[in-house]
């Protein structure tokens, strides 16, 4: 599959020559290196941090811990409050940091710090029978913890066919290629950061809250970011350590988490357990959907993955019940990872739909068509563009679905068993207000600045295109990656480009009007407009989502149970794409992560030690190049999906949602083995 059409990335040359500068790579005079020390107990109290051996090295400048660190104020998560107390809530939580003049000395110093603890009992297992489970009022992104329509139990009792299964997903780590990286410096009460994050304004806000200073006093520069996938949305514990070290030493400090530290000093996705019960009449009409979800948070902060949120909107049913329960475990607070809630929840829903199709003797595509809702099932709101059926039908056509014999385990050639599966995708539309500034110079150039960040999405290029198109000129310089450009959206919720683009369009349109008022002549001091889209946001009167459909072909080694994805075809309805090339890459990237989730990804927990066991990239497997074959992403740009200020709906997360279910459904078709627990390892395939 070749790249989609569209302008190639503005920073492309810098990225292929090594000139593109990431946070850790700015030369800074007199800089110190910081290496955090993680707790080696899963629950307890630090009784002593002995830095004597570390400080014996003349290159070691300081050992920071809860006894000498400055006080921080509560911010976004409790995990960020590093070195504020001797309490240990989970293994790997920062308990100290070593600051040294060289990287080697900082790392060895960290190994030399002796930390003593009183150890307390810990709990790290996600257990549906845990008597202390909480029933949260709301989930992440503001969904109700519990929502009920009709009488699910009665409908299930009356249903002709019921599918009743538990689906689980393990903890997963975002693992961007660039770990958390930061250079922190204090200039009086101003904090200056070169930081790898998903929103310089959010970083300024988060660090400002921690240090009790307004965001304007935090200067964040974020030119290039080596991926985030949700892990760099808010300041991580690791990044905060650098700002503390800089405060303590009075010198610039740089820190890059090791890959191992990324597993506990940066967030991850919770494990989930979905108990799904689907009821249907013999004709395929669904009469009940019951999604009971369980996820975990840490013992110090409540974060509730919105695992059941997609279930609210996918399929018609008069009886619908969605519940979220929460275990509090001695693990780092999980946070968002690409399509939070939707990704694990839709694995469950779309697997269960496949099971229901088999139980009814219906084609899984047909089952979805028969249960297409006319209004949003949970809220009753009208849809603002809904093209799920379109995606399914176009995809079926491109994939060649109609010729499929549904019989499981019926296609063997040599050692290979072949199968196909499909699943739906969805992602909500988010958009945030924010500022952008457009400036005309007398020399005919235009400068447009917005506190956006390009974590690989292609935002920089798309925003330049928006500015150039509104201004009607090519002589535009786009400036992003600085908190100084003002309040702005995150690269999160697939909302970044739409949010920033809306502000850029508004600023450019206003500048154009202003220019016209000046008869097209730019005064000597230039013309400048700052626009704010805070008041321009979408009213909550409609249900707005992008949709998609995945079609997957797998082969399974009949001797060993190894699964290989031969083909994954996605069709996505997201409205207008600002840049078809980078949008296409985003969709493919989501699908790759979906294959990776289906077959490889899991953070293994040792319950005795309260340990994330496989905390590196040799053991936490993500898909290699050899694991990815036959990818195709197609976009349906339907006009009624053009709902945001730039037209279109979010793209960044859509591609991952449902893709793991498409793989699992194909594995069932190939082998007759239904794997309900991710990842689909060979022993799970062989177990049947």
């Amino acid at each position, binding site marked *: *599959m070749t790249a989609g059409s569209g302008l*190639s990335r503005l920073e492309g040359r810098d990225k*292929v020559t090594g000139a593109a500068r990431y946070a850790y790579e700015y030369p800074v005079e007199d800089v110190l290196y910081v290496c955090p020390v993680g707790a080696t107990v899963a629950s307890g109290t630090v009784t002593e941090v002995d830095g004597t051996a570390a400080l014996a090295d003349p290159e070691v400048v300081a050992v920071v811990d809860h006894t000498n660190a400055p006080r921080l104020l509560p911010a976004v998560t409790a995990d960020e409050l590093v070195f504020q107390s001797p309490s240990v809530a989970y293994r790997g939580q920062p308990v100290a940091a070593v600051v040294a003049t060289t990287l080697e000395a900082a790392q060895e110093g960290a190994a030399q710090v002796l930390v003593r603890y009183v150890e307390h009992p810990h709990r790290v297992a996600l257990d549906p029978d845990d008597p202390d489970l909480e029933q949260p009022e709301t989930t992440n992104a503001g969904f109700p913890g519990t929502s009920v329509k009709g009488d699910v139990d009665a409908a299930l009792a009356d249903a002709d066919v019921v599918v009743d299964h538990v689906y689980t997903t393990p903890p997963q780590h975002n693992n961007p290629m*660039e770990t958390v990286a930061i250079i922190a410096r204090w200039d009086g009460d101003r904090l200056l950061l070169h930081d790898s994050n998903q929103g310089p304004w959010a970083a300024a806000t988060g660090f400002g809250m921690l240090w009790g200073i307004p965001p304007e006093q935090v200067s964040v520069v974020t030119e290039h*970011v080596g991926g985030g996938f949700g892990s760099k949305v808010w300041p991580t514990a690791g990044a905060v350590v650098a700002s503390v070290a800089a405060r303590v030493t009075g010198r610039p400090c740089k820190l890059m988490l090791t890959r191992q530290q990324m597993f506990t000093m940066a967030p991850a996705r919770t494990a989930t357990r979905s108990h799904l019960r689907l009821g249907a009449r013999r004709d395929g009409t669904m009469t009940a959907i019951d999604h009971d979800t369980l996820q975990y948070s840490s013992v110090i902060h409540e974060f509730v993955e919105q695992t059941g949120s997609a279930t609210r909107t996918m399929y018609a049913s008069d009886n619908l019940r969605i519940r979220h329960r929460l275990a509090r475990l001695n693990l780092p607070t999980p946070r968002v990872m690409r399509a939070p809630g939707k990704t694990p929840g839709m694995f469950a829903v779309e697997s269960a739909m496949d099971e229901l199709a088999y139980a009814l003797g219906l084609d899984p595509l047909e089952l979805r068509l028969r249960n297409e809702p006319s209004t949003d099932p949970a809220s009753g709101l009208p849809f603002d563009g809904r093209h799920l059926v379109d995606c399914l039908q176009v995809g079926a056509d491109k994939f060649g679905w109609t010729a499929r014999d549904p019989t499981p385990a019926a296609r063997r050639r040599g050692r290979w068993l072949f199968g196909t599966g499909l699943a739906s995708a969805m992602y909500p539309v988010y958009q945030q207000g924010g500022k952008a500034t457009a400036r005309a110079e007398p020399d005919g150039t235009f400068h447009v600045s917005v506190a956006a960040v390009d974590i690989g999405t292609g935002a920089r290029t798309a925003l330049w295109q928006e500015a150039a198109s509104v201004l009607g000129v090519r002589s535009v310089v786009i400036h992003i990656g600085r908190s100084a450009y003002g309040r702005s959206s995150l690269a999160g919720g697939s909302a970044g480009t739409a949010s920033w683009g809306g502000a850029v369009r508004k600023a450019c349109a206003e500048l154009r009007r202003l220019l016209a008022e000046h008869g097209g002549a730019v005064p000597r001091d230039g013309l400048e407009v700052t626009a704010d889209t805070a008041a321009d946001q979408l009213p909550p009167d409609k249900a707005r989502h992008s949709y998609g459909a995945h079609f997957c072909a797998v082969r399974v080694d009949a001797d060993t149970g190894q699964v290989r994805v031969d083909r994954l075809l996605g069709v996505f309805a997201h409205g207008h794409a600002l840049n078809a090339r980078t949008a296409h890459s985003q969709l493919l990237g989501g699908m790759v992560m979906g294959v990776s989730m289906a077959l490889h990804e899991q953070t293994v927990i040792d319950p005795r030690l309260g340990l994330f066991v496989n905390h590196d990239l040799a053991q936490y497997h993500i898909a290699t190049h*050899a694991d990815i074959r036959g990818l195709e992403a197609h976009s349906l740009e339907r006009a009624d999906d053009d709902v945001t200020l730039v037209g279109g709906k979010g793209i960044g997360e859509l591609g991952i949602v449902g893709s793991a279910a498409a793989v699992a459904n194909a594995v069932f078709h190939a082998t007759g083995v239904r794997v309900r627990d991710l990842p689909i390892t060979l022993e799970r395939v062989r177990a049947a």
Partner: protein
Amino acid sequence: MTDQLRGDVVLRVNGEDRVVNLDNRSTLLDALREHLRLTGTKKGCDHGQCGACTVLVDGERANSCLLLAVAAEGREVTTVEGLADGDELHPLQRAFIAHDGFQCGYCTPGQLCSAVGMLAEVADGVPSWVTADLTTTPDLDDDEIRERMSGNLCRCGAYAGILAAIREVADG
């Protein structure tokens, strides 16, 4: 024999001899990034598990995170900064841009160096795990490229673009 824990090391990087005083513990990767200001080479895992730090050492691809700088003395190191000929990009660099073979760009320098080394291996007749016949010159089909490039993880999932870019250059 030396009792020193650090010393001057002569590193030959991109055709230039660079003398740098290094801790024996410095890896080639950290020497490049922290001492020679060649930050194009990236640190992704620091344990040879991701390929972001791939450089060419005596023309062969290597994880610079696992090479002690002091042990790399006298070997010819090429980094991403050394691939272009002045302003003229290497064909692989151009192809990566043309095929959108990256998103965040952090694995890209390693992918590029790896691809250069990989094409040289193929030219030397080196087979891969997926080569059916070990005795003939390997035919560089898509699965061959995928396997040979699997030491370079890309979390953004730009594999399709990377494949297309290498394919284009390999096919001339």
